[in-house]
């Protein structure tokens, strides 16, 4: 019981003064929880709703709209790696890079490696088109990637 630690609750509450109502903190809260727990479980979602004085269905509605958040059925690995497949990257080898990374890691986009280290995702335009093809690791983007440089990047602690 108690999916959210007091520390997480405090961090969520610290967002309240920025907005005129608590509902506006929904995305912030989902980010805080997913960053720490690699998922937003149903229980965590209920506790977020309680903190924000919302119905759990309201939090779920928001959470499920953004493909970004994962529930306990598909938790994230330690690292989340996104390979861009949109036009500028596609024109410079993005689709091939995504296929290579899938092969290297032995997973399909959306899946996590068996050791729980890496979740691979395809991305739509990451906004780093001058460095196509590019790869995002968590929230840091790396330009001009190849299969080899991506392999090195994923291995880096």
């Amino acid at each position: 019981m108690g999916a959210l630690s007091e520390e997480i609750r405090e961090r969520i509450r610290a967002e309240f003064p920025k907005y005129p109502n608590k509902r506006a903190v929904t995305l912030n809260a989902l980010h805080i929880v997913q960053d720490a727990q690699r998922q937003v479980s149903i229980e965590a979602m209920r506790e977020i709703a309680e903190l924000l004085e919302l119905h759990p269905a309201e939090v779920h509605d928001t959470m499920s709209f953004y493909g970004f958040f994962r529930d306990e059925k598909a938790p994230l690995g330690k690292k989340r790696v996104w390979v861009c497949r949109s036009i500028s990257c596609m024109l410079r080898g993005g689709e091939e890079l995504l296929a290579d990374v899938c092969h290297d890691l032995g997973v399909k986009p959306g899946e996590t490696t068996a050791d729980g280290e890496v979740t691979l995702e395809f991305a739509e335009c990451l906004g780093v088109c001058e460095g196509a093809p590019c790869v995002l690791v968590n929230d840091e983007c790396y330009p001009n990637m190849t299969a080899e440089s991506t392999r090195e990047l994923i291995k880096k602690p």
Partner: protein
Amino acid sequence: MAEFEPVLMARIGKPDATSLASYQADGGYDGLKKALSMAPAEVTDIVKASGLRGRGGAGFPCGLKWTFLPKDHPGPIYLCVNADESEPGTFNNRVIMEGDPHQIIEGIAIACRAIKAQTAYIYLRYEFGKSYRVLQNAIDECYAANLLGKNILGTDFCLDVYLHRGAGAYICGEETGLIESLEGKRAWPRIKPPFPAIEGLFRKPTIVNNIETLACVTHIVRRGVDWFRSMGVPPDPNNPRDPGSFGPKLYCISGHVNKPGCYELPLGVTARQLIEEQGGGVWKGRKVKAVVPGGISMGFLSADELDTPLDFSGPGKAGCLGLGTAAVVVIDDHTSMVDVLFNCCRFMAHESCGQCTPCREGTDWMRKILERIRSGFGKSKDLDLLMEVAGSMGIIPGTTICGLSDGAAWPVKNAIKKFRGEFEEYIAKGMKSELPVLVDAH
């Protein structure tokens, strides 16, 4: 025209360019001081007189939008800064946020002074982690120096600026989708009217402006209206509704060029100049087949339309949707337009918010038809079917709530009109794409 001197990108790459101290050493926040010495309406008048048009895609006159706010409104007014930058090919907002964040915060403060807002939210796409950290640091510096917060620089002007991170959805860039998302809900765009200026964030009067627009505001207030109007393209005398295209613009160039990058130039350079002079020419000594003029939503220019000026009205004259984000994507003559169009349609099918049936179903049908064509099973009637679907969705035919749908239809319309022969041959010969494609849409 005088020699062009970059302004928005002038400080980028200088040592310590992101710090408040170095920004102030270069005259930073002088524009805000000037704005604080004027009445709010005077600031709006300057921006209006400059002819500044929104850089986020729609090109709406910025000063005019500000005047749509209700007069003498007692309650809060909000500024939402659109930093969702997700239109494929576009990265100019990121370049200036990471490289010179204080010119943006100064622009936000000046805009808030003009519109009498005391709270601004910067809606930043989650993927821009570096921008987030650079901007947060700049905001913290401003609070410490009394450039944000209460009674800024000893005046009665108070302003709080907050960063709000998105969660990976293109539709959050549409201004009312952005507002819904900021309120903690799914990013379903609202039916307009009411426009945000009347009823926006938290149902209060709200202005939404793009990052580059606000950076321009800083320099307009600092350097004056004449400076801004000294570059660009004046209004077309034969079109009384054309407000012209003034000022500098951050052009993004990517795809098959030797030197992809973000380049600041006066509005109105041609696609050819941009490719040859800034982009260093087409890579591998190849030729251009097609060019995206301003993000994929705007459609395509063909190789014989490269002399189209990239001002607010140029691409439209060549059948494109508009200038969009001025993100130029170059496609070489070794590339199949079937692959390119499939890529555009897959993006839109993935990003449609699903609220309007013509958009949700139409984007997915276009993707599926292109999937069939690229797999070698296209039918000769597919091209007309694509045109029919594309023609039935969007704000222009009046069937959808937001412009994502028009942006989904346009690449299809342009590609099939301008490259029909290539599509017909592909289908007739049952050609197949060589690209590995692992997942269609989901």
